[in-house]
Each structure stands twice: as structure tokens, then as C-alpha cells.
């Protein structure tokens, strides 16, 4: 298997993976979404709330705020040696918020959280949490924990993880009369007219929609769109908690661990029979 990084722009990553198959890539995708842990606020103790939003609404909003995660420094609550329902400082981070509007209406932002651990802070300082009118108060303590996407979407480290086959477009230059209809119809602008020929401008955005094949006046069409079943373009967009390359390496590690456990279980079952 060969992996090539096509694009890596802050929270986005696009990989070209050769020599893999659908079950494997899909397993990887599902592992990224459901099994890679990240940090999110899980429990909120509201001490005072005289804002226009209810306690539950505020707690829900807080839960959805992505937090910068330190995977090596914290344990999953169910795997933590403290075995406590409440948590210890190895599996829980407390964040506090104490705001009051003294002068007119004001917005409370995620940047106003005071975290126990300065590394575990909201990804962005500018997320509005609530708006307070004069003399309204909000005082609360929130506990962030590691969790997995299969339990709640707030623990998903990605906002997008998709894959598609690598497109292969062939233009039969003998039959093509460069009418340009396929260039016009393509919404992703994959094809381009170069003199009396149709050429491929950029193959990657192609969605395999086959519009160019359908619009071709030649019979059979001069354009042929197919795909390579062993080559994939994997597109990953992190929600901000972890960098995309870390999410990927963590997913591979988790998948590997699960497969090893699966093999071990099979062996145990076999030995029970004999």
C-alpha cells in the first residue's frame, strides 16, 4: 500500500491511497468517526444562571464546543485506574466560567473559560455561548472528558471523513471532434478544450457523474469515465480537537488493536472446542 499526501491545509487533509480495498478503507473511515477519542465537556454544574437561555440549552452548547485535546496525557474514563464515577485529574478537566454583564448587553465567548489545564481550551476563542442583558449572571463549572464518537457526536474528532475511487478519464482522440459539450457540462471543470483536442485539466475533483459521457454526440461516446477500484482519495477534515494526521495515525492504531483482539477471541473459541 502506498500513501501520498495530496493536500494538507491546516485542518484538512487529502490522501491518495494505492493498493487498498473498499472494506479496509471503509473500516478506517468508520474507526476515525466512531473510535478515535477526543475531549468535550460532558458534565456541567450550573451555580447561577439568570440568562435568557435555559440551563440545559447552555449545557448542550458547551458540550458541542471542540476542545484542544491532549490524548497522551489523559485516559478514557472507563479505562482510568481511578475507577471513579466522578473522575480524577487523569481523566477529567474542569473549566470554569463566571461572567456578569455590568454595563449593557454583552456576549459571552468561549475564550472566557478558565481551564484547569491551559492546554485543554476551546479551539476558538470567539464562539458565542450566551448573550447577557444588564445584571444577568452566568456562573458554572464544566467537566471535560475524553469520549468516543459512537456515544455522542460531540466526541467525533472529524467533521468530514470520506473516500472515493480515483477517476480515470479516457478520451478517444480518433472519434472526438472537440465540440466542447463535455467541457461545458462538467460542473467540476475537469476537462478543458486545448485547440482541437479535449484535455484533462484536473482529475481529482471528478465525481464520476458521467455527464460528459451522456452529453457526447458521438456513438459510442468518445469520452469514457471509469475508476480504479484499488486506489482511493481519502478526504479528512478535523473539527479542531486533533490535527488530521494525528487522527489518522490514532485510527490505524485502534483498528490494529481491535483486529488483534478479534484474532485472540477466535483462538480462545477454537481452544474451547477442542
Amino acid at each position, binding site marked *: 500500500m502506498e500513501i501520498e499526501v495530496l493536500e494538507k491545509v491546516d485542518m484538512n487533509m487529502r490522501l491518495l491511497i494505492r493498493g487498498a480495498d473498499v472494506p479496509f478503507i471503509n473500516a478506517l473511515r468508520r474507526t476515525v468517526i466512531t473510535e478515535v477519542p477526543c475531549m468535550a465537556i460532558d458534565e456541567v454544574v450550573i451555580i447561577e444562571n439568570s440568562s435568557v437561555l435555559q440551563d440545559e440549552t447552555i449545557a448542550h452548547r458547551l458540550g458541542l464546543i471542540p476542545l484542544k485535546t491532549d490524548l497522551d496525557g489523559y485516559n478514557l474514563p472507563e479505562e482510568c485506574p481511578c475507577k471513579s464515577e466522578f473522575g480524577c485529574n487523569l481523566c477529567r478537566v474542569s473549566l470554569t466560567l463566571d461572567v456578569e454583564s455590568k454595563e449593557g448587553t454583552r456576549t459571552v465567548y468561549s475564550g472566557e473559560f478558565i481551564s484547569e489545564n491551559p492546554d485543554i481550551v476551546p479551539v476558538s*476563542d470567539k464562539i458565542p455561548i450566551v448573550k447577557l442583558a444588564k445584571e444577568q449572571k452566568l456562573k458554572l463549572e464544566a467537566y471535560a472528558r475524553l469520549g468516543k464518537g459512537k456515544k455522542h*457526536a460531540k466526541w467525533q474528532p472529524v467533521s468530514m471523513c470520506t473516500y472515493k475511487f480515483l477517476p480515470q478519464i479516457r478520451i478517444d482522440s480518433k472519434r472526438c471532434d472537440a465540440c466542447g459539450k463535455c467541457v461545458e457540462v462538467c460542473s467540476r471543470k475537469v476537462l478543458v478544450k486545448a485547440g482541437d483536442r479535449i484535455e484533462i485539466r484536473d482529475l481529482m475533483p471528478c465525481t464520476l457523474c458521467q455527464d460528459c459521457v451522456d452529453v457526447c454526440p458521438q456513438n459510442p461516446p468518445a469520452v469514457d469515465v471509469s475508476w480504479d477500484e484499488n486506489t482511493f482519495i481519502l478526504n479528512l477534515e478535523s473539527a479542531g480537537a486533533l490535527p488530521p494526521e494525528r487522527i489518522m495515525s490514532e485510527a490505524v492504531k485502534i483498528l490494529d488493536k481491535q483486529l488483534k483482539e478479534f484474532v485472540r477471541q477466535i483462538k480462545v473459541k477454537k481452544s474451547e472446542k477442542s
Partner: protein
Amino acid sequence: MIIPVRCFTCGKLIGDKWEEFARRVKTGEEAGRVLDSLEIKRYCCRRMLLAHVEITDEILRFYEEAEKRKEARNYYY
């Protein structure tokens, strides 16, 4: 009410982009171009900002008016 923290469909963080979006659209910029420059690509996230109405501001007006009345009362007595 107030801008949601994340996109309902995909989970991308959009809450922090609302204020810039609203400000720039108010100054007369085309909404689609603002969304492009904020790098909001998918239509699920785009509709979050495009279709949002900030109702909290309307509710808070009642509190602001009440505050003004209170100040006026203090002024006369």
C-alpha cells in the same frame, strides 16, 4: 435563538464565524462570497449561517427597555 455552535449535519464549527459573517453581509457584501472567504464549502454549513436569525437580540430588547424605564424612574425620584 443564538447561532448554533456546530453545523447540524456535519459537525463543523460555525459559531465563531457568525459575527464576521453578519457584519460583512450588513455592509453590503454578497453572502456567498463571504462564505467562500470564510472557507465554508459544504452547503450544510453554508445554510447554517445563511438561514440564521438572531432572535436572542429581539428578546434582549425587552430587558434593555426595562432597564431604561428603571433608569428613568430613578431620575425623577
